[in-house]
């Protein structure tokens, strides 16, 4: 089932005009605050009526012209940034709330959902005493159990500290991998996009700035202006080969072999690795006697000069693409142009732990 959105909406000082499709898997709606992400999600949920345009889920039209399905008839689960649990109901009653209205349509069994989210011990607790992370897991379970055909998540982790984020992210990955539910996931954190998303839609001031598979968009130099240079980087899929005695882990990917600090997963596991553009250097000749462990043969695919002294270079390494942030001076000195063969140098320590996700 695919969600298709093509809507316009004008408000004083804000103008939204977006069109995109969200296929199966996690589609990240990514952008700075004020880019219009929440507005889009609210329009999809029916909490807000667009001025014009069309929103459809599969062949079911949710909003077009005079047709406007109210929220309770859309069958769309919505996980809000602030949880929004019912304060007068227990955790269990919260979980069962949507199920009661869905009737026979709610096929998800409460047992497996509770188990997947690890909230079994909370069932009879009131909601007031729950931690932020627990609240978000209950909110997620509540949405799942209402039998939705699409799940909306509006920055579900934004209000949490890093420890709580790390507590919830694995559940979101399981959700992505274990259900066939399309998920529209709003975030302004590129690390969440890299870890969770299959598709990305980048919003900037009410317009779609870039859209496509996550690896393509995050390594698109043109997206740098919107994503922010610090957020740019490639996302690659790799398989764990072995753990070495000195604490390093060897991984195999299409570009060859990768050596990272210990990755807590068994050999054979597929993982997602994010390589920041800032952490990649380029050498024309194979560097000798260098401390960096990962030196990979590459070919320049595209060069994008920035307005300042910087430049972004997209490299093809094996079947994947990675991004390097260098200076204009280096681009000229090395004569980098599309087709130039070179070597990508990345320090093994450059791959942060938080960016190692469990791949699909």
């Amino acid at each position, binding site marked *: 089932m695919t969600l298709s959105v093509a809507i316009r909406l004008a408000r004083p000082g804000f103008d939204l005009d977006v069109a995109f499709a969200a296929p199966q898997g996690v589609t990240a709606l990514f952008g700075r605050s004020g880019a219009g992400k929440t507005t889009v999600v609210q329009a999809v949920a029916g909490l807000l009526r667009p001025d014009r345009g069309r929103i459809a889920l599969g062949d079911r039209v949710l909003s077009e012209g005079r047709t406007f399905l109210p929220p*309770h008839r859309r069958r769309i*689960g919505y996980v809000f940034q602030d949880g*929004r649990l019912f304060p*007068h109901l227990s955790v269990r009653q919260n979980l069962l709330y949507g199920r009661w*209205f*869905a009737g026979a349509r709610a096929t998800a069994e409460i047992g497996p959902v509770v188990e997947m989210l690890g909230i079994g011990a909370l069932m009879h607790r009131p909601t*007031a005493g729950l931690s932020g992370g627990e609240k978000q897991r209950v909110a997620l379970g509540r*949405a799942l159990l209402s039998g939705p055909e699409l799940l909306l998540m509006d920055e579900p982790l934004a209000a949490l500290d890093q420890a709580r984020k790390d507590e919830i992210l694995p559940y979101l990955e399981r959700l992505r991998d274990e259900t066939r539910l399309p998920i529209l996931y709003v975030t302004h954190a590129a690390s969440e996009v890299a870890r969770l998303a299959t598709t990305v839609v980048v919003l900037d001031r009410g317009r779609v700035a870039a859209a496509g598979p996550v690896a393509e968009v995050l390594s698109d130099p043109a997206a740098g202006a919107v994503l922010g240079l610090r957020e740019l980087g490639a996302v690659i899929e790799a398989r764990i080969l072995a753990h070495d005695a000195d604490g390093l882990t060897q991984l195999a990917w299409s570009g060859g072999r990768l050596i990272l600090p210990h990755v807590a997963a068994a050999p054979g596991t597929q993982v997602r690795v994010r390589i920041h553009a800032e952490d990649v250097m380029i050498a024309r000749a194979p560097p000798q006697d260098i401390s960096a462990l990962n030196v990979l043969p590459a070919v320049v695919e595209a060069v994008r000069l920035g307005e300042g002294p910087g430049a972004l270079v997209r490299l093809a390494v094996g079947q994947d693409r990675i991004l390097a942030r260098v200076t204009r001076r280096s681009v000229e000195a090395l004569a980098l142009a599309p087709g130039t063969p070179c070597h990508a140098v990345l320090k093994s320590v450059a791959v942060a732990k938080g960016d190692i996700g469990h791949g699909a």
Partner: protein
Amino acid sequence: MTDWLTPDEWQAVILSLQVSAVAVAASLPLGVAAAWLLARRRFWGHGLLNGLVHLPLVLPPVVTGYLLLLTFGRRGPVGALLDDWFGLVLAFRWTGAALAAAVMAFPLMVRAIRLAFDAVDEGVEQAAATLGASRMWVFLTVTLPLILPGIIAGAILAFAKAMGEFGATITFVSNIPGQTQTLPSAIYALLQVPGAETRAGRLVLISVGLAMAALALSEWIGRRVARRIAGR
């Protein structure tokens, strides 16, 4: 006990309780509706409705009573209709005393319930809608339980106010012992009789006791319900 109060005085106490209970019970749904309109809806005439609801709070009670008499009296436009269609007569009956008490207590009731509406997080209601609850179900399963403390507080406040209503009641339904003589009217009547201060004093004591009890009850229920709704 029977020696302590005369049958007429007992009658006044019982009648006051009955009038106040009926006034609150009958006006509560209207009070919730008016509070909802004022708190949640923006419409043409919002300010007018707000003014109308609050009018009895600021008008001299005797004016309110007179206006009730003009409107709901036997010859009044509404009173004549009620008499023709339902055989319902309000003027100079205990039902009229209930109407007067309800009208006078209405602003207090609406204010308390409106505050409760304002305190409900509309985001939680939106969440209920996305979970499949229609507007009516959202109201019944989320909004109503959350405003319950406000409704109870409003109802008890209105009851206490109704128990003490005097000006509009005596203007609209007069002071007929056994029929429209409520507690305040009885006290007033006794104060007109030389040497009846002791009898009036007993009724005053009862009046004070009932008011205190109502306030204490409202505090107690309010705390209980608030605790339950906050999920503790």
